[in-house]
């Protein structure tokens, strides 16, 4: 698995698009510093971008890379290698190259700005952790969807709808349910619903860490009230890690039964 990961990473790091993606974060983060000149505010702005853009780009990129590397996959399948190693390696290659781009693009300006000596270091690391883990989850979901759908257009479409669902629609449904059942004790439902959406989990975790109650919303507040800040952060971290396992297992399971 490591070898395939190595080659797929090497292939991707040299691709222009992944380079532009890293440069985009670099310019955006530097721009934020120039405009706001404030570490804490920059982290909040980056959080908003991270929560929407990282899953979207990971979805698009994961889907495109999977369909583009189909013939390469056939070459690998003809080698004496088990399927889980091939697809595990490809998944790690795509998700980690996106993660590394994010890490470098956002990280370098912060390091130059002197994040290391400031009090914001843990908030910054939380942001980086979430950027990387969202890259993993959504590129994994996209590859899984790609494996399950032979038709490129259909696979790509489903992947985008999944992103849209988690990034936008899910919140809307959750909010509607909270309003509709506001007379009932819905805290547990609300916590459960947030754990089922990796983007909500990321948002809650960053906001808990930053301790901005104004931006936290109902679920964040419930999370904080229910678990306290530290337990809340631990639970959201564990749930996010668990979320990376879901697409990974899905990829392994679907690849075992697929014809190429």
């Amino acid at each position, binding site marked *: 698995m490591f070898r395939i990961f190595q*080659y797929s990473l*090497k292939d991707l790091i040299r691709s222009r698009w992944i380079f532009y993606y890293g440069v985009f974060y670099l310019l955006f983060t530097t721009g934020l510093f120039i405009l706001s000149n404030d570490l804490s505010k920059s982290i909040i702005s980056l959080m908003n971008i991270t929560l929407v853009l990282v899953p979207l780009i990971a979805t698009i990129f994961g889907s495109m890379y999977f369909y583009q*590397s189909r*013939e390469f996959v056939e070459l690998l399948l*003809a*080698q*004496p290698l*088990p399927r889980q190693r091939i697809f595990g390696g490809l998944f790690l290659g795509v998700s980690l190259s996106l993660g590394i781009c994010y890490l470098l693009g956002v990280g370098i300006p912060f390091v130059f700005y002197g994040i290391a000596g400031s009090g914001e270091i843990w908030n910054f690391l939380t942001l980086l952790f979430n950027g990387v883990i969202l890259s993993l989850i959504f590129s994994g979901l996209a590859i899984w969807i790609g494996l399950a759908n032979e038709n490129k257009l259909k696979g790509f479409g489903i992947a985008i709808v999944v992103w849209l669902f988690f990034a936008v629609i899910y919140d809307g449904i959750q909010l509607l349910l909270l309003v509709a059942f506001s007379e009932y004790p819905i805290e547990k439902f609300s916590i459960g619903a947030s754990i089922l959406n990796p983007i909500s989990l990321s948002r809650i975790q960053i906001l808990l860490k930053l301790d901005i109650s104004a931006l936290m919303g109902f679920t964040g507040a419930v999370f904080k009230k229910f678990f306290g800040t530290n337990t809340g952060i631990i639970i959201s971290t564990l749930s996010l890690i668990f979320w990376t396992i879901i697409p990974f297992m899905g990829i392994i399971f679907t690849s075992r*039964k697929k*014809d190429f």
Partner: protein
Amino acid sequence: MIEIQGLQKSFGKNQVLNGLDLKFSEPGLTAILGPNASGKTTLLKSILGMVIPEKGDIYVKGKRIRDHYDYREDIAFLPQIARFPENLNASELLKMVQVLRKGDSDAEPLIKKFKLEPSLSKKLKYLSGGTKQKVSITSAMMFDCPILILDEPTAGLDPVSLMEFKALIDEEKKKGKIILLTTHILTLVHQLADRIIFILEGKVFFNGTPEELLKKYNTDDFEAAIASLTQQEVLTHV
């Protein structure tokens, strides 16, 4: 060395392989022929474990291949279209296959034969279709595998490379390998094949030597015999 028993596979409503029984135990080249969508590639891919059959079994060297992968150490596969990771160069690709397969390999003679030296350091996406095919041939044939599976291997090759390729296959035949080849180029079949299998609608329609085929249709012309086979198939299925 390869035994196929009652192989069945369908894609949706389309029954591609329909109870196929075959045995490849003698060294030599077997040409697998048949019209488009007759199940040739599906058969080859089933042997490689890329397509998972619904019914039936495949044995390589006496071992059932289902859920196994190490038997592929003995098989070199040349796919129809050669496409690789775009941003790697040819020598990196060859090295990658060598690392992944682990067995002894020697790419040098093939690189020389196909004059690939100038292309080795170029990114694969900048290579022409024919050069990519040569890289693909090198990546498959640099290992000394007892079984070769070639799925329309000559696509995009120029006449000189085609001759080189034929000579290469001839050498491999002399080493006593089992070679399975699908192609639509009948001269290639005529020159190389020791045995011909004609597949139609997922079943074996003809299985014998080129001489037997000529005898069956009472002709000296190989292409005419194949044409008769195809025509008979049309007549039987109208």
